[in-house]
């Protein structure tokens, strides 16, 4: 139920890329790790310690606080909930319709995740579902998911499709339900209390992998239309505006062999480079992975349906089947994000379903 960071470093030099991965510790309930913030952020004049507040959320989880690109963690015990500007919740990979090992009722665990949202002291301003809402894009699966989400105590729900939602018909059924207010394949942008939110779609027009030499990567992709729209959307936006980007497949390469990356993700990140605080929220891999690169922090969420193996820990990225029933919920979860102030520090809290 708590996470440890591995190698989470931020460096003022944009050229250095460091990998951050949060692994689930086996059932052990650690009190939390207090880490020294490392690296400096000279570029925007914020000192090393900066402004840091510890957030608490519904009892469990390790709190991450983002301050000008420095990811640190603090002990839950050390602070009761401190109100920021607003919170929102990321929920991902519900795969409604999935009914095999290790979870024969993905709708049920999705329902449980929504119930957890409803126990939050402070109602989230909105939810973001980062895709794979359904297992097979079936109408009844979309219906069930919508029905479950109607019970969520949250302002509004924003979506981005996963490949499971779009593969059958290039996203037509998904767009019929969730296309309102979006462009093209379902991308969108909105502002909330001074934060720019951008939903990208990287699961359409996927090209096959390189196996037969046809030059595809097997990765997600954004496409030129969407990138042109993104450039336009960011035009004139002050660099001090905190930006939150959400998309299904990770925008950075988590693991190439399994297609866990986005072909032209680097182009999108290039457009975001000038901003002082960028948070990228993804799903798809059914486990938590984090990385900080300059002013951009990346975070992937757990699934509410089933866990997947760590990169390379299995022959293929299918569901982890041998999870005992009593341990399943410790590997499923959702993410709460607290926007602390207009200047962008975001506290990202992952928690499990049990």
């Amino acid at each position: 139920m708590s996470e440890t960071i591995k190698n989470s470093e931020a460096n003022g030099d944009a050229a250095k890329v460091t990998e951050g991965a949060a692994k689930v510790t086996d059932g052990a309930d650690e009190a939390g790790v207090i880490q020294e913030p490392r690296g400096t952020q000279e570029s925007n004049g914020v000192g090393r310690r900066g402004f840091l507040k510890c957030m608490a959320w519904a009892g469990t989880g390790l709190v991450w606080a983002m301050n000008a690109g420095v990811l640190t963690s603090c002990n839950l015990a050390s602070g009761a909930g401190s109100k920021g500007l607003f919170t929102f919740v990321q929920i991902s990979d519900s795969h409604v319709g999935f009914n095999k090992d290790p979870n024969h009722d993905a709708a049920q665990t999705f329902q449980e995740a929504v119930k957890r949202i409803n126990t939050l002291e402070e109602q989230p301003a909105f939810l973001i579902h980062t895709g794979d809402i359904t297992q097979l894009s079936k109408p009844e699966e979309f219906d069930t998911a919508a029905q479950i989400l109607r019970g969520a105590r949250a302002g509004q729900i924003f979506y981005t499709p996963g490949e499971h939602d779009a593969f059958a018909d290039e996203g037509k059924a998904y767009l019929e339900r969730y296309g309102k207010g979006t462009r093209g394949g379902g991308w969108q942008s909105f502002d909330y209390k001074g934060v720019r939110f951008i939903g990208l779609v990287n699961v359409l027009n996927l090209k096959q992998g390189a196996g037969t030499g046809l030059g595809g990567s097997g990765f997600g992709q954004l496409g030129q239309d969407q990138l042109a729209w993104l450039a336009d959307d960011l035009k004139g936006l002050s660099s001090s505006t905190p930006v939150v980007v959400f998309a299904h497949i990770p925008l950075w390469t988590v693991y190439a062999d399994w297609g866990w990356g986005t072909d032209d993700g680097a182009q999108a990140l290039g457009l975001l480079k000038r901003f002082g605080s960028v948070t990228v929220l993804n799903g798809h891999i059914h486990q938590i992975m984090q990385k900080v690169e300059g002013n951009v922090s990346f975070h992937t969420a757990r699934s509410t349906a089933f866990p997947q193996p760590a990169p390379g820990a299995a022959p293929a990225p299918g569901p982890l089947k041998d999870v005992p029933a009593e341990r399943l919920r410790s590997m499923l979860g959702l993410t709460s994000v607290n926007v602390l102030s207009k200047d962008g520090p975001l506290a990202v809290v992952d928690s499990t379903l049990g």
Partner: protein
Amino acid sequence: MLETFGRRIRLNAAASLLAACAACGGAGLGAGSSAAPSSQTPNAAHATDVAGVNQTTQAARGDAKQNSKTDTKPDAGADAAQNQIVIENFTFKPATLTVKAGTKVTWVNRDDVPHTATDTDKRFNSGALDTDDRFSFTFEKPGTYDYFCALHPKMTGRIVVK
């Protein structure tokens, strides 16, 4: 906890393999293995009644399905195993299949996750194949068909039609 993707022997898969072999024998194509040679019942081999020999052979095999396969089309059973692509462990097996024009190829998904077989030039698309679902496509035109799984685009395969 490491995931093991060992194959599970499924009863239905084993049964369909037996049925395919029975059909091979019944159709007389000899492509599959013969399960029970008539030499197992030497006395029956001397019977003058051909039908009687067949019945005894059936009895020796203990395979009552033999009879039901005799009126199936000649290509249905024998080709089933040859022009079939099994999807398992996120792989199309065989990765490349070469067939004659006019051949029907069948994909069957043995994975616990859904897959598709989608031609990159959109000439065929299986749609979602859940576990044990199958999809068949008859390749009339010669050419090379590169395809992939729309859900896991790293999975690729090729059909060469001559």
